[in-house]
């Protein structure tokens, strides 16, 4: 059924990659066997994506040899890599927003005759592929209208639309909830059956243990070791990754959970967002972590956007400390003490071309300037350095452009910028997207600490273990409505999933 177990399809020998003074990969050696799922894990900035980009022809390696299907391999462009039979789903989404799903999927191999595109055929093929993959997206939808999760699905469809011998998936599930991830897992299973090799990158330990045949751990650009799944365990992997033992990744509570007697700081009553969400009612108490769970497209992000004044709700009321508020803009919401880490860090979170320091101080410029509006250089730098240390952001210096950081470290910058303003209500939409286990623990600890200091935390996440591990109470959304609000203690994944899937009301 599968190919012989020991046939090596990809052989990476002593590959080193430097970006100016930064060494992203050091003497990396790795061999991938045909027809197997080979997972790479490592902390944020370990060099996983860099290695994949070398394979995909985005960057050339500084030194070292690669052999692919028995031939020396050094692609000069992504095009060449694709033509050699390698396809990649990039970690950072790379779709054209103005174009439709179908056009994006077939960006480089549109059905055509003498160069003329057959649009009907294009849509048909895209629908066929979407259908085959079982994805909840419409072929004719414009990408700009899709949520991040759906865009990730499009990205996957695009990557899998080429016939390839080697498929690279760089954190494909980072913003997917379990049910969508399930679709991907079965796809990977089918690829394996066809003898296709998969390189898989993820920070989610459970899925890694489920999917992988072989696992390679990378730390600081260097190989730590490769083993088969059978030889290892989550705890062992984490220890290899972060260099120390970690037992519980959900840190203990610092303060007791606020009971129902505590006056809510935020009350949302019958909020209505047109076709985006209806009749959303919940409240949040100071000191509480209020989780939001739902399937992709259940309306969670749109509710948060409304609270933050991005899109004005069509009906319903929002109360802050019992006083009615109508946030007109993010600026307005921020002044009321609301902070919002969005799910789309690249478009809504970061100024990629600007330095780490500028990004961290983006919201809190008032704090690092004097009364006359002049920026205080030393205060700016100190603030940035503090955050880099606190969140263990891996960066060369604080003057490095955010674009040069790894995905997980970029996510930490966005979190850092909101932590600077000490919000009363902190909305987190997929806060640990692409963040490694060690850093997740750190972020969870900070969330707990903020709550203990009296903030209310609204945490939207598609990572069910995370939601269950952290929430004091849990709002479950289904089909643009609140399906139920449950106490966080003692919840099972099964209960939550039944509500989220709308099977119980």
């Amino acid at each position, binding site marked *: 059924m599968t190919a012989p177990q020991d046939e090596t399809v990809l052989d990476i020998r002593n590959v080193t990659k430097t970006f100016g003074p930064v060494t992203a990969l050091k003497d990396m050696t790795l061999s991938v066997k045909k027809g197997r799922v080979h997972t790479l894990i490592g902390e944020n900035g370990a060099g996983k994506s860099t290695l994949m980009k070398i394979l995909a022809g985005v960057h050339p390696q500084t030194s070292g040899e690669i052999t692919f299907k028995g031939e020396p391999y050094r692609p000069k462009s992504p095009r060449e890599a694709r*033509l050699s039979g390698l396809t990649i789903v990039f970690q950072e989404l790379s779709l*054209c927003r103005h174009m439709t799903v179908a*056009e994006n999927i077939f960006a480089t191999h549109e059905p055509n005759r003498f160069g003329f595109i057959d649009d009907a055929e294009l849509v048909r093929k895209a629908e066929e592929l979407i259908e085959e993959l079982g994805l909840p997206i419409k072929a004719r939808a414009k990408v700009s209208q899709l949520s991040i999760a759906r865009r990730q699905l499009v990205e996957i469809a695009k990557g899998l639309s080429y016939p390839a011998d080697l498929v690279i998936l760089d954190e494909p599930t980072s913003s997917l909830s379990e049910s969508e991830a399930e679709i991907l897992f079965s796809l990977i299973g089918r690829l394996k059956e066809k003898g296709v090799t998969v390189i898989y990158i993820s920070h989610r330990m459970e899925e890694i243990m489920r999917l992988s045949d072989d696992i390679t751990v990378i730390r600081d650009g260097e190989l730590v070791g490769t083993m088969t799944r059978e030889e290892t365990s989550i705890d062992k992997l984490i220890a290899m990754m972060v260099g120390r033992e970690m037992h519980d990744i959900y840190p203990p509570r610092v303060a007791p959970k606020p009971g129902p007697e505590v006056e809510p700081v935020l009350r949302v009553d019958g909020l209505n967002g047109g076709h985006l969400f209806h009749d959303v009612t919940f409240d949040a108490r100071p000191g509480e972590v209020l989780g939001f769970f739902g399937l992709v497209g259940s309306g969670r992000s749109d509710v948060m956007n409304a609270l933050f004044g991005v899109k004005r709700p069509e009906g319903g009321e929002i109360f802050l400390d019992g006083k009615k508020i109508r946030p007109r803009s993010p600026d307005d919401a921020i002044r009321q003490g609301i902070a919002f880490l969005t799910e789309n860090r690249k478009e809504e979170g970061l100024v990629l071309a600007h330095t780490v320091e500028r990004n961290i101080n983006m919201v809190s410029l008032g704090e690092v300037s004097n009364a006359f509006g002049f920026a205080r250089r030393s205060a700016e730098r100190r603030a940035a350095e503090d955050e880099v240390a606190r969140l263990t952001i891996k960066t060369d210096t604080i003057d490095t452009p955010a674009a040069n950081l790894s995905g997980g470290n970029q996510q930490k910058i966005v979190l850092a910028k909101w932590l600077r303003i000490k919000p009363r209500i902190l909305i987190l939409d997929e806060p640990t997207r692409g963040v490694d286990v060690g850093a997740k623990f750190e972020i969870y600890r900070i969330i707990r600490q903020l709550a203990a200091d009296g903030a209310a935390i609204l945490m939207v996440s598609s990572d069910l273990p995370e939601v269950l591990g952290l929430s004091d109470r849990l709002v479950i959304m289904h089909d643009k409505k609140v399906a139920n609000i449950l106490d966080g203690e003692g919840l099972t994944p099964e209960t939550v999933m039944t509500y989220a899937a709308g099977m119980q009301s």
Partner: protein
Amino acid sequence: MKSFVSKFTSAPAVREYGGIVASLIVLCVVFSVLSPRFLVFYNLLNIVQQVSVVAVLAFGMTYVILLGEIDLSVGSILAVAGMVAAQCFAIGLGFWPTLGLTLLSGAIMGAFNGVLAAYLLLPSFIVTVATMGIFRGLVSLPTGGLPAPINNDAWLAIGAENWLGLPIIIWIVLALFAFNFVLLAKTVFGRRAYLAGGNKEAAVYSGIRVKRIKVIIFTISGVMAAVGGILLSSRLGSAQTNAGLGYELDAIAAAVLGGTSLAGGVGTMVGTLLGALIIGIINNGMSLLSVPYFYQLIVKGLVILLAVWIDVRSKTNRG
């Protein structure tokens, strides 16, 4: 009735061009009321002919803007192309060789822009501001700044004669419109241009050869500018060294009025044609009404503002 209207206004074409078509109609109505001579067949032909050069430049500009770039040198390329034609005739070449060399000169100048922008990574604004000057200097070299007369009858016929009842110029504009429309909307090349303009990085990562596309697109823009030079020189019967001065702004304005986004990734040939027509109609209408020159400048500006405003509003209202 109501359902018909709502069906009509929700059709994709209306959604896309509703605003600009509305502006166009408003303009036509206003000018027809103010001047009985506006809505006369002969005058409508006039408008199309008068706007033909800008329209052709704007076709080329549409690709360039779509790619998130800009080409300020088209006015100068146009002038050089006219001068190339005049010099070809002066040394005794016939119609077809002259036509070929003229178009080739446009292609070379456009490709020069494209190579500098794509392979030397220079910003296209600076490249084309520089070549705008360089080409404008070149055009004056053969005659020392004097206009060069063109006496080839076939050439002059382009700008003066009719074919099947319509001026040849109009046929040329229509043919180029059809060509560019198909190239942009229906071919693989066009699709790649949209992708490269919408998200350059994504296009590169997907294996699209963005640099090549950039060179091709600047070359197309150069060729279109050369066609503009052919039309203008045949209309005027001579190659002027200051031909096409400032036309780049009209061409860009036509494309942007027609909905092409300077950020790249968005735009259509239909929109550009409509944008060019708006500019032509404003100029012609005010001229028919004998609006004094300075007031023409003011009114033209205000009408352009109004037209984009209607367009932007009609787009944002629908979400």
